[in-house]
């Protein structure tokens, strides 16, 4: 171990690649299949993008902490940030046939997370602490 299992970044889309690189490195160290790593990475990216855009409204004085934990054959990525509560698990998944028919744009981050991960847990602690945990069974 020795190496840090978490990173703290400024809430900016310009830092998304740093988060992806960090999670990829941690997952690769565990020998996780590259196809599965891709699913984890895009889910973390989508979750953090939503936080940057919707919760922090592109104000990069905010921060996002991303931690990876591996235990009991589960690889978990915990995303911690301050702000209003928003539980993505409660969001309804769009009907993709309708989506394409109407040429809709946006709103695909959460469906991607739900399709790619095995479990998603959201926790809000007063006054404004949030943690979103994305879990993949390995």
């Amino acid at each position, binding site marked *: 171990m020795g190496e840090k299992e978490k990173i703290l970044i400024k809430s*900016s*889309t*310009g830092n*998304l*690649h740093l988060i*992806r690189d960090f999670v990829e490195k941690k997952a690769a160290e565990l020998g996780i299949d*590259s*196809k599965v790593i*891709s699913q984890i*990475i*895009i889910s973390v*990216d*989508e979750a953090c*993008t939503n936080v*940057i*855009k919707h919760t922090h409204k592109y104000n990069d004085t905010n921060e996002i902490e991303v931690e990876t934990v591996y235990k009991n054959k589960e690889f978990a990525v915990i995303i911690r940030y301050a702000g209003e509560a928003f539980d993505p698990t409660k969001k309804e998944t769009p009907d*993709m*046939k309708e989506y*394409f028919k109407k*040429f*809709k*744009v*946006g709103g*695909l*981050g959460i*469906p*991607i997370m739900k*399709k*790619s991960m095995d479990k998603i847990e959201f926790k809000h602690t007063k006054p404004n602490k949030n943690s979103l945990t994305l879990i993949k069974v390995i």
Partner: protein
Amino acid sequence: MDEFTITEKKAGDLVILYLNGFLDAHTSSVLEKKFEELLSKKLFKVIINFAGLTYISSAGLGVFMAYIETLRSNSGDIKLSNMSDKIYNIFDMLGFPILFKIVKDESEAVTLFNENA
């Protein structure tokens, strides 16, 4: 290495865009601007060559969704080619192949445009 760049090639009324690097919520505006530029030049037939693209998120998918209808209503289209399995899997996950023609090779996309000309 640049985070995201686009190289452009013109062949008659066809435009081929070669994407390089990663396409996420940070870089997708670069592609958006490119589409706006093509629209202003009345270029509606676009092939996207993904050979140099290492990553795409929903922000990237959103750019294609945002322009496909306009291009098609102007007798154009966006055809996608040369995707790695990694990139294709993301398009496939939510059913994008329903709406977008995805071909193995750029030349196939060119042929498709010429057939419909």
